[in-house]
């Protein structure tokens, strides 16, 4: 029997160290939690934050690399580094929001933090996947952890409903994804992205098995990023899940899913975008329009933010429809801006919420500016960024995406997207009106006693402003990330387009 030859599969510590750190962190948190009561779980939160911080530093080592490891199973490039860093930040924000919330709501302490870390591990795997199997396994690790997290308020029927709905529909959508992977494997004879890219010749692209596989993959990802018409689960799940987890779903799960989505479609199937961009065009229009229009009539802030998240997935799909390096970088920048803004907004929902979901209604935000001016100011900032008001991060994100789509000739799509932004302004600003011009609402309680939550809100607000007024370094990081994944794209595109 031959000994295993690790050099032959290109074994490398660099890409797996961050993953191992998060995984070990999750296990250590779980084991440390055995000795603690649920009410003392705050220390576990800080332990999780430490693991995320170490992983963050280790991930910085991947920036600037280009290549693959483990026989092509992991991609080691700035693209994976970019997504992994943002995912780690999103997980850290989620834990900051949860430190007080988890204790107040009697969530199972150790399992809670452990599952957040495992879910982040799944997202990071999706971001750094080099083949379809790792994409699938990352997606499942992420999803199974989040299914459970959504249902952790075990005694609240709405939380039960959220978990069951998310689990059933998620499992169903995973079936589509897996079927797509199988068909693509059948057509190309490989699951590795490098080999698939090399196999995409003109006769191959007319192979119905490959196109059907691509369509199935599209459906699977559309479920995960909550694109219309695959969004049915979103509002109920977002409403029923514990609020920090809702924020994690709206940001982290989207980051993970879009990381895989962008890597497969924009990077590896980018040269043949004419075969899938029309489908994405339709998805983008439906997603933006349905998300924004239904958000207008919502009275619950978590449901409103759920539909808003759907609409934002629509804007990102506009960028994906445009394809090409400019749109790819714009999508990455948008995801970064969206992550901070949305995490901030959910942190404020957490701040206002009392035990047992009191404070979830938009009516509860009336007169917030007189009771807690700082909180109202931060919420207004996040909502304006989500609307896309300059000079905040959300504006620059939309600007880059729309510009990229215009340069690719998608004028009609951009007009629809801008009209949608106007509709979106209505429901975002109506919350601001409630906070500043109306009376009533509920008391916010003693925020000073929750330094972690205040820190999360503050950091998100600073990032939202900073990324907006000084976008150049973040935009160039996004561009570097996208280009490092799609290095040889320009050449291949020239040889493939008829």
């Amino acid at each position, binding site marked *: 029997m031959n000994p*295993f030859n690790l050099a032959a599969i290109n074994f490398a510590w660099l890409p797996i160290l961050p993953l191992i750190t998060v995984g070990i962190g999750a*296990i250590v948190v779980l084991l440390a939690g055995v000795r603690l009561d649920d009410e003392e779980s705050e220390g576990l939160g800080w332990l999780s934050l430490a693991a995320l911080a170490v992983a963050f530093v280790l991930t910085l080592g991947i920036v600037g690399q280009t290549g693959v490891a483990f026989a092509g*199973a992991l991609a080691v490039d700035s693209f994976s580094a970019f997504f992994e860093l943002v995912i780690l930040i999103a997980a850290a924000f989620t834990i900051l929001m949860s430190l007080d919330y988890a204790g107040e709501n009697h969530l199972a302490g150790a*399992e809670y933090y452990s599952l957040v870390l*495992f879910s982040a591990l799944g997202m990071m795997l999706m971001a750094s996947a080099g083949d379809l199997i790792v994409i699938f396994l990352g997606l499942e690790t992420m999803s199974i*952890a989040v299914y459970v997290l959504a249902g952790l308020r075990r*005694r*609240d029927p709405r939380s039960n409903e959220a978990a069951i709905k998310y689990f059933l529909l998620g499992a169903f959508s995973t079936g589509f994804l897996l079927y797509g992977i199988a068909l693509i494997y059948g057509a190309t004879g490989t699951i590795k992205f490098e080999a698939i890219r090399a196999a995409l010749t003109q006769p191959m692209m007319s192979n119905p098995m490959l196109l059907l596989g691509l369509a199935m993959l599209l459906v699977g990802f559309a479920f995960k990023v909550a694109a219309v018409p695959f969004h049915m689960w979103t509002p109920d799940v977002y409403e029923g899940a514990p609020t920090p987890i809702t924020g994690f779903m709206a940001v982290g799960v989207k980051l993970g899913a879009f990381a895989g989505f962008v890597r497969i479609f924009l990077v590896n199937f980018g040269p043949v975008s004419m075969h899938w961009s029309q489908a994405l065009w339709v998805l983008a229009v439906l997603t933006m329009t349905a998300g924004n229009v239904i958000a207008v009539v919502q009275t619950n802030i978590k449901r409103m933010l759920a539909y808003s998240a759907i609409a934002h997935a629509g804007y990102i799909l506009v960028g994906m429809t445009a394809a090409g390096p400019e749109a790819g970088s714009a999508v990455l920048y948008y995801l970064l801006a969206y992550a901070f803004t949305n995490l901030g907004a959910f942190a404020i929902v957490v701040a206002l919420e009392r035990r047992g979901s009191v404070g979830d209604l938009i009516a509860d935000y009336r007169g917030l500016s007189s009771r807690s001016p700082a909180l109202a100011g931060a919420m207004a900032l996040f909502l304006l960024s989500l609307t896309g008001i300059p000079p905040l991060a959300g504006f620059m994100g939309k600007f880059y995406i729309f510009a990229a789509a215009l340069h690719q000739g998608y004028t009609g799509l951009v007009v629809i997207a801008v009209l949608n932004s106007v509709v979106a302004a209505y429901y975002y600003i109506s919350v601001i009106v409630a906070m500043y011009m109306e009376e009533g609402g509920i008391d916010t309680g003693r925020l000073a006693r929750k330094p972690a939550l205040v820190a999360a809100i503050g950091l998100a607000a600073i990032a939202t402003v900073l990324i907006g007024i000084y976008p150049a370094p973040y935009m160039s990081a996004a561009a570097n990330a996208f280009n490092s994944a799609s290095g040889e794209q320009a050449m291949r595109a020239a040889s493939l387009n008829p």
Partner: protein
Amino acid sequence: MPAGLFWFLAALSILAALGVVLQRNPVHCLLALVLTLLAIAVLFIGQDAIVVGFLQAIVYAGAVMVLFLFVIWLLNLPVESGPTGHLALKLFGTLAVAALLAELAVFLVPSRLQLKFSSAHAAGYGSIDALSQTLFSEYLIAFEVTSVLLLVAVIGAVALARRTTQAELQERKEASARVEKAA
């Protein structure tokens, strides 16, 4: 694999599969299914897919079937008196079976059917040695991540199913009071 053995196992697996459908007692159906799976396991081994054959016997005929048996006993299923269900269900069932038969008929035309009872493979093909070489080298990451995935599933199941605390009971009461108030 001798042709006679192949035909014997093929006939046995089909007869046993018919038994799964036609038996009335659920436990008898299950035993017939075990027979089908074992016959197919031997067929796999005859085709040099030794690991697949043993996995079929251990995992399917062994573990999964025992699980089925437990569920049948747990549910205390009655002996079926005949096919049940809606008329529409029977109609669509018949249509689906007809479609599958048509598909088989297309693929099993003699020109396409090339029966080979033994195949020439490199030494070690389908062995546990070759499988583990692939699993622990080319698919190392996928293999390790799968174990993480299973761990997550276990933690999740325990987190959702563990004993209810007093605080949670209180929360339950408050939540149902709210739901009633809203309704």
